């Protein structure tokens, strides 16, 4: 399974390859001899809608590959509501400068419904951490890199696109152009349009590109978060520590969290099935962390949908989706930043390869190659997290067992390995069997206690 990690490294080598007629890239993308060379030697034009991690990474990879790229973003200083956690591999794969990372979380506390607290992070090596970033900082950085690579970054609101009339025709993108003086993305705007050969929809959970292409809907969770500025002495506790609270009071199908940000903490929770009760869940989360955030001031309240699974359709003609717009958020942890950036980059690389560095037209099959590669690379990760969510977020009993399991060193090592490096590595089989036995034991005990709990009347 270590081949997965080497496969992760391959796209950068893919980028460095020189242009040529039709040559085989490692991703087995061949510029089809049938796809025509673009007329008048013009380059392929692609619109990337949305300037978050997915859009920024896609635009950069496209521009580097010789494709004429336009990145449309509606709000250049957008503070997207987000947990803001990025895995270690993202820092290295995307060459992120370390000053982007506000905090390095090395300790996590998992807290069960009955407040059993387990510290995880003992098994981390000194150089390993979970990076906490501010989205406005990260997004702006990736966009600026795309711009330096040659992409045109436009401040505007995507309205809709029109499909081409004939097979190799152009898409027409309509958007509201905001001039640089009104960069908050709200005021006015002048309707403009331009023609492109392909569209990459990176506009997030409420994607308009997805709507236009009929991609279908997904179930989504609502994540609700309050940013709380707590006194300095309380902030010391959260210096390198994040907390996760599980319990029916905090969320029936997700978890509540306290994540440290640059100079404040984010306290939040989320749910798929009981969205109307989100405020109650938030109050419960605050209650559980009460002593540790007491005296804090709420500086911001924010909420955002989080997709639970990919949209039924992720490509249609020469329009495709990446990131949250496609629905690439894992279950159990709700992680999306890395997969957004990675999918953006992989999609761009597929377009670059399929168009022979921007000289030929791309087709839907080239975009499907990106989907196939992404699914192949990350399906094990998504499936494992789905199983974990189904088994351990079911009920308070299961959550108690979950927290109990997290105390085990082997579990911690496996969890962090798979999170930080995005590879599902099967460990030592004997340890796996022991882990399976311990898991079943924990679940059985917790369920047995649950039965006893039902008999108790307080």
């Amino acid at each position: 399974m270590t081949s997965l990690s080497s496969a992760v490294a391959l796209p950068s080598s893919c980028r460095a390859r020189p242009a040529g007629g039709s040559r085989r890239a490692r991703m087995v993308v061949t510029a089809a001899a049938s796809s025509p060379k673009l007329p008048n030697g013009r380059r392929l034009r692609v619109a990337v809608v949305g300037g978050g991690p997915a859009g920024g990474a896609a635009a950069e990879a496209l521009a580097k590959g010789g494709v004429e790229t336009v990145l449309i973003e509606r709000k250049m200083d957008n503070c997207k509501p987000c947990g803001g956690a990025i895995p270690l591999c993202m820092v290295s794969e995307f060459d992120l400068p370390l000053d982007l990372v506000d905090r390095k979380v090395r300790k996590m506390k998992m807290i069960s419904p009955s407040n059993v607290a387990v510290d995880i992070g003992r098994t981390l090596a000194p150089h390993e951490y979970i990076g906490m970033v501010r989205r406005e900082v990260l997004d702006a950085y990736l966009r600026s890199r795309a711009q330096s690579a040659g992409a045109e970054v436009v401040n505007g609101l995507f309205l809709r696109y029109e499909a081409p009339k004939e097979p190799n025709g152009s898409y027409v993108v309509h958007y509201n152009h905001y001039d640089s003086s009104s960069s908050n993305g709200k005021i006015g705007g002048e309707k403009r349009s331009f023609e492109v050969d392909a569209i990459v929809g990176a506009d997030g959970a409420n994607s308009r590109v997805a709507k236009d292409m009929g991609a279908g809907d997904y179930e989504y969770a609502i994540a609700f978060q309050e940013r709380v500025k707590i006194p300095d002495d309380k902030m010391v506790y959260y210096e390198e520590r994040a907390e996760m609270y599980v319990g029916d009071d905090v969320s029936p199908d997700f978890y509540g969290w306290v994540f440290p940000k640059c100079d404040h903490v984010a306290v939040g929770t989320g749910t798929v099935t009981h969205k109307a009760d989100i405020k109650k869940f938030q109050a419960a989360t605050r209650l559980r962390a009460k002593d540790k955030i007491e005296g804090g001031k709420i500086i911001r309240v924010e909420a955002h949908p989080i997709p639970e699974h990919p949209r039924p359709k992720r490509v249609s003609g020469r329009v495709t989706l990446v990131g949250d717009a496609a629905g690439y958020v894992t279950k159990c942890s709700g992680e999306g930043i890395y997969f957004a950036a990675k999918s953006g980059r992989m999609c761009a690389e597929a377009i670059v390869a399929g168009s022979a560095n921007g000289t030929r037209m791309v087709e839907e099959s080239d975009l499907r190659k990106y989907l196939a590669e992404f699914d192949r690379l990350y399906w094990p990760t998504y499936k494992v997290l789905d199983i974990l969510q189904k088994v351990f977020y079911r009920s308070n009993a299961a959550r108690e067992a979950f927290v109990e399991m997290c105390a085990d060193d082997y579990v911690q090592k496996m969890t962090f390995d798979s999170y930080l490096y995005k590879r599902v590595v099967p460990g030592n089989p004997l340890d796996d069997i022991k882990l399976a036995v311990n898991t079943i034991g924990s679940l059985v005990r917790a369920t047995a206690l649950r039965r006893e709990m039902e008999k108790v009347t307080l």
Partner: protein
Amino acid sequence: MAMATSTFSPRPATLNKPLRAGIQLHLIPFPHLRAGRLVCATAAGEAPPVEVEQRDEAEPAPAAASNGAAVKAEAPAAKTEPPPAPAPVPAFRDDRWVNGTWDLTKFDKGGVVDWDAVIDAEARRRKWLEDYPEATNTDEAVVFDTSIIPWWAWMKRFHLPEAEKLNGRAAMVGFFMAYFVDSLTGVGLVDQMGNFFCKTLLFVAVAGVLLIRKNEDIESLKKLIDETTFYDKQWQATWQDDSTAGPKN
């Protein structure tokens, strides 16, 4: 093993038990519960008898001793409507709960630890915290791990009665079926066991008794099978459509 099945059967999404913290003011028998507990604790050092009768008398005691006072870390000009201020909730207290774990010396019964009492105490604690969630405390972190209770204690208490029940059912069904088949075909018990069809029936009967304890279990099993493949189907949805024709719209 007897419990494993029910773990995996999907729970109905009846999350309508409200946040107990404070909303059910009238159900908190605060002073009475405390009094009762003190009395019994001193008497026998064991889990006090639960009090059910005094629920209608509501006398929210001053929040002095509890940590549930409704002080929220909120700015005065709250952007969200403040949650209903919870009434003082009684914190979980038990003589045998020391430093975030159960003090096993307090569960002494004739020289050995009374594991049944530990299980009862932990069940009660979890129930309490489920109904009245508490703030976590870094100074008094809860570190109790249920694996400290030996496996045979769990087995004796939970598995054995269930196993007895299931074996009893299997025996009754088995005896009747053996008699029935014998009366119909004249094949005796020993010869029945040698027959492939009978062995298959036996296997089905055993599996049925193990997996299906209540009528609802049949539905749960069907739903479970769907659940395991649902996520896969969602991921493969984009490969289902055959149309590589022009895009929509």
